[in-house]
Structure formats: structure tokens, C-alpha cells
């Protein structure tokens, strides 16, 4: 079998440099010895050691040597390439050498700093240097590719995160398309009455932003729509959006809502999703008065016309704008964007997964979101705290950590439940005068003015019982308990088990990833952590970036978070997108892979390996083709090509084999 080994006599001329890094390296490794050793290796034309290679004189020395000694390759033994690879590539370029004819040897982080045996560390440095010198002979001249960035942005999700990101981008003059799955923007925040800890009215702070979105000349708002497909790469995404039929022409409807009154159903009788099923709606409806866009829609599941085709269509008759269109079909729209902000939010934990709390079994048990609607002035009871059977609760229990901090369901802390439980306790007490019991594991109030809010609640006379509720049932042991819900809980501060009868029980359900988070992440080619929330590129240093360039995340789709943090993150995501767009182009590291066409047999083994869909199959030639712009340079395909027909720049087989041989040749 052939091995294209460079012949001894035509070896490229290598310049070798070893850095002392003050005493950081020289304190353990003997640079002079390594330098002498390298000088004796085949092909090495120049070998030097120097105090600080990364300093200007150090770099200048390299550039000078390249010119003077006609060096064709460069090896520097110093710190980690993650730190200074770019520095020495530039030094090479300054000397007129292609920057990729360079290999760096890490003898600081990987040797001098981690070893105490000087002799062994020096030997290790020699091995690594020999490997690099052997390897660098195989290096190829490469160029960095630049691709332009489309200035338009897609924001997915119309909750407070998406709204804020869209407005920030639009205010900066970028064209934004905001896509929302529901009929209105506003997200979970639109359900709330008040927000903690300031207790400002959620509608008062949210609805102006919603209207601003609708009115902004730079924002195209598509509600009742979903992203179906995403193609392309950073700066150049092609997105397919499906606009579901509302059966009402959006541009014609002015939101007068006369059609709702005119519907053949005299009374609303269908499940009202927006009100968590606590209220009822008609087949033609609008989620809430401030819905944005303020456009009605028709539910095909319950509308007689859409189900049977036989209805008097009183709704359409009353519409003088002729906005009804019962023939409307789903529409596919294609847009081009340079960046995408994902703000798809969360799903509340399904309380039925914890049967011990009796949700769905006892009508007196509610989820926190239901209570949000119940205490909301514009909710189904106009803010009156009333039980499903019409009674007014005298005592109310709030169970914290339902679907949070629980090995059986979700291990994570949902971060907002303590605070919203406090808020609900306050509102319930305020609206009904009931005694309120909070059952908590730990009270977590780590935000600005949060602990103070907790203090306020304590002074309001809300009861706090530290303990995880074991069970809720209707098993009365005394006459006083008759007809009530019994909360059994170990009071871990008092040290005994208590039975607390209540009339209403609120389950503070945790925040979970959206049910389709996995599908969505695949559609956008980003990652999910083990718990299913979208994965940020770095938990500290790149919290709104993803591993796919040009796609940013904000809000509770990344992890449970409250409104202030969500808005801050949305702003950060918008800023990252702006930084990308305003640069105008992106430069790509040339460590991409490519298929050698005449060697490829078209076996498709590489196709499914690429998480970025950079590899496609060219159906005419029946060969695999790699789009080098989409390729992120992992090299999985190169490792797996069964006939060795894929090469990865900077990590070619020859380069790695020679490095292995070099490191072991002695």
C-alpha cells in the first residue's frame, strides 16, 4: 500500500521555536535541551529558544527567520493552542508563510505546569515537539472563508422574551419576522394578573409592548404560525413558516367582536384554553380583549360550518368587512434571515403526574396557572376567588415544588414557583380573605427585592409550613374535616405530621421544556440538555448562544426563569444577533471536511453522521458533497468514510498518523 511520505531529501524547511514563558516553562522543562534536540531532527532548518515567544520581538523573530532562512513550516512549543495559536499564525503570515503551515505544541498547560519531574517533563516535551515537526510536513496551505450575513432576523415565540427581542432588533433598524404558534402574542405573561415582587399589573406592562410589536414598521407579525423547516447556515438561513388558517382574513378583521355575539351558539360552551378551561368560549373567539393581533379566529373542531358545512353563518353575515373565509387553507411562507432568536418558552408541569395531590380527582385542587386566571380581573370570574362548586374558600393551601426538585418527575428547581406562590398567596388573601398555607421545601427568594417580598408576606399573616406534602385526600377524621381536602404533611420545623384541612389547594407546578422541544431543537439544529431545555453554548460565557452559529436562545426555553431575567436574556440575544449582522460577514475556520469526488463510491455512510446536514448526496453523480460553509469541522465523517475519501483540513489522516508516529518514534 502506498504511503505518501515526504522523501528525506525534499523535506520542507522547518523553523522550530520553544518559549520559556519566563519560568512557567523553563522552570520545569529545559528549553535549551529541547531546542538542541529539535535542531537534530530531519528538516529542521532553524531551532531557537526564547524567553517570551508571544511577545512582539518573539513574533518578529519568527517572521524574520521565515524570510531569511526560507522557512516552509513553523512549529512553536509554548502554551495551549487555544490561547496563542492565532498569534503565531499571524506571525507566520507576517513572514509571508501561509498561516496554516504552522503547528503548535502545548508544553505549558500539558507539561511544565502539571509535572514536577524535570527530566520526565523535558522528555515529554521532546516527544511532543518531534510529533509536531513530523506532522507539520504534511500541512497544506489553507484560506479562511468569508460569508456575508443577511440582515433580517427571525424571532420564534411571542412571549415576553420574543416580544422584547423583536422590539430591540426592530428598533435597531433590522427587519424582524416574529412567529408565534398561538393566535395571540403575550405568552404566559398574558395570563397573569400581577407580577412579583412589585405586584405591577402584568397587562399594564405587557400590552403596550404587544401593541408596539403590531405597530412597528420593521416587524412582521405572524401569529397562529409555526416554523416548519430551517435550511442554510449562519448568516444565510432559509426558513419555511406554516400559517394556519384562522378562517378570518387577518387584514380585514378589525376586532369588533360582533361576530362572536352573532354566533349561532348563544352561550359559550367550549373549552377555553386561554383561561385554562375555567371559562368557556364559542367556536368563533378571541383569546382575550387585548389579544394581538386583535383578530378573531374560528376553531374548526367546534364550528358547525367547518364541521358540517351546514350553518346559518350568522357570524359572517354580521361582519360588514366581509372578513370571514371558510375556505381558507394553511399557507407556506418562505423567508431569508441571517440570524434566529428562539424564545419558545416553557410548558407547565402536568399536575396529574403526581396523583398523590389529587389534581383532576378532587375539584378543589387547582394548578397555579388556573389560579392566575382566577385572580385575574379580566379572568373568567373577574378576579373573584371562587371554587368550582361556587363556594368561597375559607382556607387555601399552596403546595410548592410540584414537578420540581422531585426525583420522580423533574429534578431541577423551577426558580419561579416560590415567588409566584408568594404572589398568589397575597392575591388570594387579598381577594378572598382566606387563610393561606404555603407548604414549601425551602424558600428560594434570591432576586432583587424578592426576600423583602417574602418578609412582607410573613407580616401579612400567610402561614408557612416547611415540609413536602405527602398526600391530599378527602378522608375526614373529624366532623370539622368533613367535605374538605385534607393535606397531610410533615411539618419539619415542628417535627410532627400534620393534617390540615383546606377548601382550595393550589399546586405550584414547575416549568418544563415544551412538549415538542426535541423536535424544535432538531429543526433548528441546536442541542438540548439532559432535562430537555435548549442548550446554551457555554453556561457562563455564552448563555444565549447555541452551538449553531447565528441561532440564539432567550427565556424559559433555555431554563426556568422569571420575567426580569427573561427580558435581560432576550436583550442579550438581540444584541448577539446585531453583532453578527453588523459585522456583515462571518469568517469560517478552515478545518472543514471535503469529499474527494473521484474517490467517493457514493455509499452514503457519511450522510447521517453530520448533525449540520452539511453533507448531501449529489443524485446525478451519485457522490457525497460537503458544503464547507455548513461544515463545523468535527471530522466525524472523515473518521468514518470507509474508503478514506473524506479529508478534514488541518486534521488529515496523514497529519494525525504522522503525529502518532512522531510522538512514539524513539
Amino acid at each position: 500500500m502506498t504511503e505518501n511520505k515526504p522523501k528525506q531529501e525534499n523535506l520542507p524547511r522547518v523553523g522550530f521555536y520553544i518559549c520559556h514563558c519566563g519560568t512557567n516553562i523553563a522552570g520545569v522543562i529545559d528549553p535549551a535541551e529541547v531546542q538542541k534536540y529539535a535542531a537534530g531532527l530531519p528538516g529542521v532548518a532553524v531551532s531557537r529558544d526564547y524567553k517570551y515567544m508571544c511577545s512582539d520581538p518573539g513574533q518578529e523573530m519568527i517572521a524574520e527567520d521565515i524570510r531569511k532562512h526560507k522557512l516552509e513550516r513553523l512549529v512553536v512549543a509554548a502554551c495551549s493552542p487555544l490561547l496563542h495559536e492565532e498569534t503565531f499564525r499571524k506571525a507566520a503570515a507576517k513572514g509571508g508563510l501561509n498561516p496554516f503551515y504552522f503547528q503548535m505544541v502545548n508544553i505549558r498547560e500539558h507539561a511544565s505546569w502539571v509535572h514536577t519531574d524535570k527530566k520526565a517533563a523535558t522528555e515529554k516535551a521532546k516527544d511532543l515537539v518531534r510529533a509536531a515537526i513530523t506532522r507539520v510536513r504534511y500541512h497544506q496551505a489553507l484560506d479562511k472563508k468569508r460569508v456575508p450575513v443577511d440582515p433580517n432576523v427571525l424571532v420564534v415565540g411571542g412571549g415576553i422574551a420574543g416580544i422584547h427581542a423583536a422590539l430591540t432588533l426592530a428598533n435597531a433598524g433590522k427587519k424582524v419576522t416574529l412567529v408565534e404558534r398561538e393566535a395571540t402574542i403575550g405568552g404566559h405573561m398574558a395570563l397573569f394578573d400581577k407580577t412579583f415582587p412589585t405586584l405591577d399589573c402584568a397587562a399594564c406592562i405587557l400590552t403596550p409592548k404587544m401593541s408596539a410589536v403590531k405597530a412597528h414598521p420593521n416587524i412582521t407579525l405572524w401569529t397562529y404560525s409555526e416554523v416548519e423547516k430551517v435550511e442554510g447556515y449562519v448568516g444565510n438561513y432559509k426558513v419555511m413558516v406554516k400559517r394556519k388558517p384562522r378562517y378570518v382574513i387577518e387584514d380585514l378583521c378589525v376586532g369588533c367582536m360582533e361576530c362572536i355575539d352573532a354566533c349561532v351558539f348563544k352561550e359559550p360552551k367550549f373549552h377555553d384554553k386561554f383561561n385554562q378551561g375555567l371559562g368557556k368560549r364559542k367556536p368563533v373567539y378571541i383569546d382575550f380583549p387585548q389579544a394581538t393581533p386583535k383578530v378573531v379566529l374560528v376553531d374548526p373542531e367546534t364550528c358547525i360550518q367547518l364541521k358540517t358545512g351546514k350553518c346559518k353563518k350568522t357570524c359572517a353575515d354580521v361582519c360588514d368587512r366581509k372578513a370571514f373565509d371558510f375556505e381558507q387553507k394553511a399557507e407556506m411562507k418562505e423567508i431569508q434571515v441571517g440570524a434566529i432568536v428562539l424564545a419558545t418558552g416553557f410548558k407547565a408541569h402536568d399536575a396529574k403526574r403526581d396523583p398523590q395531590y389529587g389534581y383532576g380527582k378532587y375539584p378543589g385542587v387547582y394548578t397555579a396557572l388556573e389560579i392566575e386566571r382566577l385572580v385575574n380581573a379580566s379572568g373568567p370570574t373577574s378576579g373573584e376567588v371562587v371554587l368550582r362548586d361556587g363556594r368561597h374558600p375559607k382556607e387555601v393551601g399552596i403546595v410548592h415544588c410540584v414537578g420540581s426538585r422531585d426525583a420522580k418527575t423533574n429534578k431541577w428547581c423551577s426558580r419561579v414557583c416560590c415567588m409566584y406562590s408568594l404572589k398568589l398567596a397575597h392575591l388570594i388573601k387579598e381577594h378572598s380573605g382566606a387563610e393561606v398555607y404555603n407548604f414549601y421545601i425551602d424558600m428560594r427568594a434570591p432576586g432583587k427585592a424578592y426576600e423583602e417580598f417574602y418578609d412582607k408576606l410573613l407580616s401579612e399573616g400567610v402561614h408557612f409550613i416547611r415540609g413536602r406534602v405527602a398526600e391530599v385526600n378527602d378522608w375526614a377524621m373529624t366532623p370539622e374535616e368533613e367535605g374538605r381536602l385534607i393535606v397531610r404533611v410533615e411539618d419539619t420545623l415542628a417535627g410532627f405530621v400534620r393534617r390540615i384541612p383546606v377548601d382550595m389547594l393550589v399546586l405550584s407546578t414547575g416549568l418544563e421544556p415544551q412538549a415538542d422541544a426535541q423536535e424544535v431543537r432538531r429543526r433548528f439544529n441546536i442541542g438540548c440538555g439532559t432535562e430537555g431545555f435548549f442548550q446554551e453554548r457555554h453556561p457562563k460565557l455564552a448563555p444565549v448562544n447555541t452551538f449553531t452559529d447565528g441561532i440564539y436562545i432567550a427565556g424559559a426555553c433555555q431554563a426556568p426563569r422569571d420575567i426580569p431575567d427573561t427580558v435581560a436574556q432576550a436583550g442579550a440575544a438581540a444584541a448577539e444577533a446585531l453583532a453578527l449582522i453588523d459585522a456583515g460577514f462571518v469568517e469560517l475556520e478552515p478545518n472543514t471536511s471535503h469529499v474527494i469526488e473521484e474517490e467517493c463510491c457514493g455509499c452514503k455512510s457519511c450522510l447521517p453522521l453530520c448533525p449540520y446536514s452539511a453533507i448531501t448526496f449529489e443524485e446525478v453523480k451519485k457522490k457525497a458533497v460537503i458544503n464547507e460553509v455548513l461544515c463545523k469541522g468535527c471530522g466525524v465523517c472523515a473518521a468514518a468514510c470507509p474508503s478514506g475519501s473524506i479529508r478534514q483540513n488541518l486534521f488529515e489522516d496523514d497529519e494525525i498518523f504522522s503525529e502518532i508516529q512522531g510522538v512514539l518514534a524513539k
Partner: protein
Amino acid sequence: MTEKFEPKIVAFFCNWCTYTAADLAGVSRLKYAPNVRVIRVMCSGRVDPQFVLEAFARGADGVLLGGCHPGDCHYAEGNYKTLRRMRMLERMLKDMGIYDGRFRLEWISGAEGDKVRTVINDMTEKVRKLGPLDLPGKFKEWDKEIEELEAQVSKSAAKEETVHAR
């Protein structure tokens, strides 16, 4: 005099997690055995089983492969591909007589500098106990049987030639 055997271990570390962790170990000045030589790849998925075999064939006493934890791969799923093929490679190595931890796959995240130390120390000690693998030496040893004959044949050939010439 018997010198203490110092195993040679070749490591392939992914750029984003394990190589970064090794850098972190350095920055934290953790001390560990000087027996490992790291070769950097962008993703553990770039590691072709051929590289592992080549390292053994060229004299490595052990081969260590480090990647991101499952689910944390910088390239989404590269480490799963590594895991799958390396599970098979492990079986093949065993069938070829290389086992007992001479080949090791570890998931080390960028935050786990300490794990770099413990894994390297542990592997160095384990391989030290196993003793040298020394495949290049073995290859030479095995090929002695044909070298002997080669020498003989060429000798007799030389003789024949002289006879022939006469």
C-alpha cells in the same frame, strides 16, 4: 538493574471538552503522571479506530480517548458515534489480546480538570502494572524467523552464484 517501567500512553482529546479540561488542569497546577502524550482533535468523533491501532503498533502501552459527556458534544452527537465504534473496537482489541484497560474511553467535560488528573494517574498506574506492550519489539521478535532464513538464503544464493559462474 531493573528500572521502573514508564508506560507510554497516547491520548486523543477533543478540542472542546477534554483538551480544555487538560488546559484547566494546567492552569490549576494540578500534578499528574508525565506518561501521556496528547494529540488534539476537534471532536472525539474524528478518532478513527485506525489511529488507536496505529498508536499501539507504534509502541503505545495504552491509548486514552477523551470526549465530551453524552449529550454535551460540541458537535451535537459526535461522541455517540465515538462511543458506538469504540465499543466495537474494544471487543476487537480484546480478541487480539489487548485488554485490561490498555484502551480507555473517558468523558471529561471542560470543567473537569481534576478528572484529567485522576484518569491519567489511574491509567498510568494500571498500565504500569500490566507491563510493556511493546508491539514494535514484538514485531521484530516475530520476524526473526524470516530474517534468519533471509540471511541463510542470501548466503546460499551467493554460493550458488559463484558455482554457477564457474
